[in-house]
């Protein structure tokens, strides 16, 4: 999804264990190992959550409760990672990778959901990171608490997300101009709608009822997607690196096109 194995550095470079210096700093190296283990667990939880959000049922509407709970989990992780500075590191690595290589649709989506600048967390007081729950493969709770608290007291970096797309809880979209241009330039042309990110779009687009008022007036009309059928047709016809044609889309493009054609033809 995004480059794993990227060396994660914490806010203080001094935390990095000196090579071969384990004898001297035995407790702290153990601590760092436990901490990176916790971070790995947290990272894998984040990965898992993002995959869950992306995988939609082909035909049936996804469960809104489940989606909301997973999204809240992602938000929690992101907030914690922002607090201890790992968020900044990860997004830096990600945007570097994006600038260098041709990005796959998967990574695009990951960026979408990952990169959020939360105005709320700026200037917020330090939140104690949550202790990891003991589970298979997860380190025991007690040790985690001790280690993580130490890290937290180091003070968080102010979250400065340098990701292409930033997204505040208030729903405003911010674009970091340069990288956004590179990554989402073509997409922007096709879809002038204010909220182009596919992952959360998929999450909530089906249930976003900008046509809610119509619901109560017209029988048989449930909430319409943000894009009407004609917008969809436009974006489908100009096949490019549109997120809609990515693997994250819930339905295959051909089915969509057939379906739209059926409606237009009036069969």
């Amino acid at each position: 999804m995004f480059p794993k194995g990227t060396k994660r550095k914490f806010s203080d470079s001094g935390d990095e264990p000196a090579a071969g210096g384990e004898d001297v700093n035995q407790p702290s190296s153990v601590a760092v190992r436990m901490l990176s283990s916790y971070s790995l667990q947290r990272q894998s939880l984040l990965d898992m959550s993002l995959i869950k959000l992306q995988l939609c049922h082909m035909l049936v509407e996804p469960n809104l409760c489940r989606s909301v709970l997973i999204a809240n989990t992602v938000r929690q992780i992101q907030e914690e990672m922002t607090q201890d500075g790992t968020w900044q590191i990860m997004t830096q690595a990600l945007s570097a990778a994006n600038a260098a290589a041709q990005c796959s649709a998967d990574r695009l989506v990951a960026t979408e959901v990952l990169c959020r600048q939360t105005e709320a967390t700026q200037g917020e007081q330090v939140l104690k990171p949550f202790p990891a729950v003991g589970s298979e493969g997860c380190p025991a709770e007690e040790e985690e608490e001790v280690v993580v608290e130490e890290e937290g007291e180091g003070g968080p970096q102010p979250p400065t997300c340098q990701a292409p797309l930033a997204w505040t809880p208030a729903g405003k979209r911010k674009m970091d101009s340069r990288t956004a241009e590179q990554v989402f330039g073509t997409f922007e042309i096709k879809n002038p709608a204010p909220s182009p990110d596919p992952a959360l779009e998929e999450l909530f687009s089906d249930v976003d009822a900008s046509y809610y008022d119509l619901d109560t007036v017209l029988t048989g009309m449930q909430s319409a997607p943000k894009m009407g059928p004609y917008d969809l047709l436009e974006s489908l016809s100009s096949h490019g690196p549109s997120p809609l044609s990515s693997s994250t889309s819930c339905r295959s493009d051909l089915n969509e096109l057939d379906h739209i054609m059926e409606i237009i033809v009036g069969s």
Partner: protein
Amino acid sequence: MSASSFNQADIISTVEFNYSGELLATGDKGGRVVIFQREQESKNRPHSRGEYNVYSTFQSHEPEFDYLKSLEIEEKINKIRWLPQQNAAHSLLSTNDKTIKLWKISQRDKRAEGYNLKDEDGRLRDPFRITSLRVPVLLPMDRMVEASPRRIFANAHTYHINSISVNSDHETYLSADDLRVNLWHLEITDRSFNIVDIKPANMEELTEVITAAECHPHQCNVFVYSSSKGTIRLCDMRAAALCDRQSKFFEEPEDPSSRSFFSEIISSISDVKFSHSGRYMMTRDYLSVKVWDLNMENRPVETYQVHEYLRSKLCSLYENDCIFDKFECCWNGADSAIMTGSYNNFFRMFDRNTRRDVTLEASRENSKPRAILKARKVSTGGKRKKDEISVDSLDFNKKILHTAWHPKENVIAVAATNNLYIFQDKIN
């Protein structure tokens, strides 16, 4: 962990006794409703006393297609609720994700014979041939049970319906989806009142959904709804037309020592049920059942651990999606015991007075007809005793989500995937 092959459509999705307990309805994933009727006690067949046999089967909902969203609407029956019986026929409400239907189930076991104007085949008799009048007589016939849809309540829910509840006034009922609660009149299908709406102006701000709702058993103006954040709101419909501001707010403060990334998910309430007395309500979250006194909002009065041994497995259960399973719970008629399901076809019963609990299993291998169920135990420690089952050998595909308790007697119905088990107290 056997891979049993069965039709997905046969998975039971709801179980409900009617008010007298004489009838038991089940709904399945294929949109069918099967109603069982309890056999009357008779001297001729003493062994079949109280046995439930199939009374009626009908297709309640069909799969539909939402053309605007290009999505299928599942025919799975999410909930069945019986209406109080007002005449010889029985009525129930059944709902899928979008549409609620009122079904009338009536039976005929007599037919009239000896009409004057038509003969036995139904053909009209030649009026000139009729020389005398006779009174038609009623003769017994094979019982025929008919189910007909009397009302269809459609197009009121944008999101998936998770609950329906008949009001104590017997005239109205509520239906709840992820973000809204609507109030209907049983006679009126073309409109409903929206009484709760938690949809944010901007859907991106959505962090909480409605998970269940129920009407108070006696006070027709009171209802509750639970949320994915582990809160319950009690609302009074007399206070305002839109009950967005609750009268009471029930939430247990979080234990900071057990906080984890999964805390919110496991606090999400999957079911809420008022006690028959109306004094208490019970909520089910992923690991526990809580009993609340309606007069105390800050914490439950009783908490029962259903399968605490799963707490250390939450990561795996999140991975395989089991953490999102919605277990239901139910009271017995006297409100002295509660029951809820678990995994491995286990279900749990708690006695509120003695504080004793028992784990039982609903499976063909382990229960023969009229055999007494053996108590099961999951071993939590390192050493596993004989007959205990270790947590790692639990089958998470065998989940008991739906259970029901007879309103008056100790008869329970347990749905284990595609099988229905009915257990009764042994009578010597």
